């Protein structure tokens, strides 16, 4: 069918038709292809990026690249100080944060409460004890303080509240969390941990997206929390490690396990530590993105079909003449396939350059702030190449079909413009 001669003649025709076509028409078609390509990649990329934004925040603020937590049978990481010393001695470990966690309750406005039949302005909370300098170096926690100030190493009774604990920032009540009313920096609240109560001052309020790990946390100094909880063993509940650029998380995890840390702690890479269900959410969002993208693909196919159909229809007389002078129908069809291919490749090529030259790095540096997370654009190159292949194939078919319809018409009818 598409013999070498047909391909050669088809190419000869296509190159000249493209080269001498109206610049505006060509630009418009290429623009449609560009938008279709971006629609295909960006819709899915942003949807997946919403979940990725959640997991990235989790990695940035909580787990780091390698995460050590208490074994299922223990309340804390055994030999925490030895483990910290070992980790600090490894060159791959760039930033290290350690945390103590304890369950507790917070009560605000306890001094003004007169009617004890009323529901108290209190909530249960997970209290995280941190070393503020190391934690800030690790996660940049201080920059999330929207009101008040960040913790200092000398603080005694200061706490930072996650946004979900403050009703004016909260996204609503949760089963175990009731946002506190009338809480501002400087407000005194009653903190109870393990039966011990201390009046603490709200030093700052952390404002983040709803799904950020910070939203549901209350921070105070690690040594104060340990004291409040009656912990004297100097063990901690979490050690989060950020690795130096180029270091491999899985390899570092395996190194720690080979060093025997697995006996005292659960050692996980970031991927191991992703909360259950995140992968399923990612796949669901990707499927939704693909469904939306395929609508765009159909629109592009119809656009190309119409463009090629109108082009072939208006050139029907010339197609008839070409056939009349002995140019095969296949060569003419191939010329239209080449034109469709040109639009698809140029549109996708420009889209590819915009995507990886601008959009991905820009959105990565400036995530899209959404209530659910700070979304980034997830567009792995292999996935994008598959989408380009799908777009190209669709375009070729959409270009070939109308060309074939016109080429198959009676030669003389085409020449004479008869229906």
């Amino acid at each position, binding site marked *: 069918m598409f013999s070498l*001669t047909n391909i*050669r*003649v088809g190419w*000869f*025709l296509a190159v*000249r*038709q493209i*080269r*001498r*076509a109206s610049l505006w028409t060509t630009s418009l078609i290429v623009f449609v292809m560009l938008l279709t390509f971006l629609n295909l990649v960006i819709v899915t990329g942003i949807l997946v990026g919403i979940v990725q934004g959640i997991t990235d925040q989790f990695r940035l603020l909580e787990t780091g690249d390698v995460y050590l937590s208490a074994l299922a049978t223990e309340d804390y990481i055994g030999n925490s100080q030895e483990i910290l010393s070992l980790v600090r001695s490894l060159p791959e470990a760039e930033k290290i944060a350690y945390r103590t966690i304890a369950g507790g309750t917070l009560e605000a406005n306890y001094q003004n409460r007169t009617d004890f039949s009323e529901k108290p302005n209190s909530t249960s909370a997970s209290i995280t004890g941190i070393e503020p300098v190391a934690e800030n170096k690790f996660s940049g926690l201080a920059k999330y303080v929207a009101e008040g100030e960040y913790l200092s190493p000398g603080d005694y009774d200061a706490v930072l509240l996650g946004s979900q604990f403050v009703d004016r920032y909260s996204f609503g009540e949760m089963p175990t969390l009731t946002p506190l009313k009338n809480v501002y920096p400087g407000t005194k609240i009653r903190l109870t941990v393990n039966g011990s109560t201390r009046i603490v001052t709200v030093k700052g309020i952390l404002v983040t997206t709803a799904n950020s790990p910070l939203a549901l946390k209350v921070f105070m100094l690690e040594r104060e929390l340990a004291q409040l909880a009656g912990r004297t063993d100097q063990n901690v509940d979490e050690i989060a490690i950020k690795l130096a650029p180029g270091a491999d998380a899985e390899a570092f995890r395996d190194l720690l396990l080979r060093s025997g840390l697995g006996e005292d702690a659960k050692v996980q890479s970031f991927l191991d530590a992703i909360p259950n269900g995140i992968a399923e959410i990612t796949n669901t969002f990707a499927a939704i993105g693909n469904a939306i993208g395929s609508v765009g693909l159909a629109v592009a196919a119809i656009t190309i079909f119409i463009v090629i159909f109108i082009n072939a229809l208006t050139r029907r*007389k*010339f197609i008839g*003449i*070409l*056939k*009349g*002078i*002995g*140019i*095969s129908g296949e*060569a003419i069809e191939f010329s239209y396939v080449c034109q469709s291919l040109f639009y698809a490749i140029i549109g996708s090529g420009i889209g590819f350059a915009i995507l990886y030259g601008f959009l991905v790095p820009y959105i990565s540096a400036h995530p899209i702030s959404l209530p659910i997370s700070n979304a980034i654009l997830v567009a792995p190159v292999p996935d994008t190449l598959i989408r380009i292949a799908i777009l190209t194939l669709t375009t070729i078919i959409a270009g070939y079909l109308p060309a074939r319809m016109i080429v198959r018409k009676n*030669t*003389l009818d085409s*020449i004479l413009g008869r229906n």
Partner: protein
Amino acid sequence: MIEAKQLVKSFKDGERETRVLKGIDIKVAQGEFVAIMGRSGAGKSTLLYQLSLLDEPSGGDVFVEGRSTRLMSQNEEIKIRLLSFGYVFQDYALLPELSALENVMLPLLMQGYAKEAARSKATAALSRVGLLPRLLNLPSQLSGGEQQRVSIARAIAHDPKVLFADEPTANLDRESSARVIGIFKELHAVGQTIIMVTHEEEYARVTGRIVKMDDGLILSDASSRA
């Protein structure tokens, strides 16, 4: 060379059938220059389309070098049109986005010529019709007469056995028409078989034979010098 026997062509418009050719017999020998004449609607162009295999007759048969075309496949017909025939249309029928040279090269490429060989043959053909200085011009940059000469160059570049011309001077001024007819005369002089439809007596007279038609039938078929 080409022979039509009892050639019939009819068109259907709903229930109504119009017979445009009503049993034509004609034989054109190699080297002949034949003019087909007649008033509008006489069937002269329709006859040319049947003889040149651009259309299929409703009845009868066309023989090319003794071979019946009725039994030929579409591909065989395309091959004959490509290799053995050349066409000159009334409205030049050049591709607007191809230069004069490229328009002439196109059928040569289809015949399997390498690009350089096709370029060389096309240049020679354009030179023959006096268009060497306009090789790279697009049709829109050429006058009507020049476009028709490009069309002739395209038709003769591959040395066809028969050159078909459908009213080649109808859209041209007197000077351009005379030039086109002059080219045909030169081609005929070196043995080119030409079948030309025309309604102009003056140009028909330069051919060797005039076939006059009316109402789908041949009224007369005689030497133009008789």
